[in-house]
């Protein structure tokens, strides 16, 4: 006869997440990932100044680099990326 503690542990392992709620977990997980990706993208944008060592990050953009996510009727050869915080 398993001890009461083992019974408790086994039932906890079986029930620790609700199987029927998996679609909710998937959707919420996707939303969290998407939001944090976009927040990271905003934070590393060229118009954001983080440290005094890099007071003008936009000055590192070359003329053929683009910073936009989507463009209409515009073509940039490369996309800019922030080299230092």
């Amino acid at each position, binding site marked *: 006869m398993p001890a009461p503690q083992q019974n408790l542990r086994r039932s906890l392992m079986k029930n620790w997440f609700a199987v029927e709620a998996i679609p909710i977990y998937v959707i919420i997980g996707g939303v969290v990932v998407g939001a944090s990706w976009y927040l990271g993208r905003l934070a590393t944008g060229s118009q954001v100044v983080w440290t005094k060592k890099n007071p003008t990050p936009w000055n590192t953009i070359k003329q053929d680099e683009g*910073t936009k996510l989507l463009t209409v009727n515009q073509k940039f050869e490369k996309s800019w990326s922030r080299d230092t915080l």
Partner: protein
Amino acid sequence: MSEDLQSKYVIQTVGFDARFPNTNQTRNCFQNYTDYFKCITAKGEDYAPCKQFKKAYNSLCPNEWIAKWDEQREAGTFPASLEP
């Protein structure tokens, strides 16, 4: 008559600057204003390529801002450093 006028006035504006690709050109205006005065300090008033910054900020910036910043420079209260 119109040919004379056309030869006197070249209609031109600031070219595309990849650092400021969006509709909000405020920073473009301010950057050119500070760059002009840094250029003047570094190279002297007669250095011709500095004129490009002057033309740019005169095209981009509202005249009220240019007047306000000129006053601030006279008074020594201009908010950015104009050291090259």
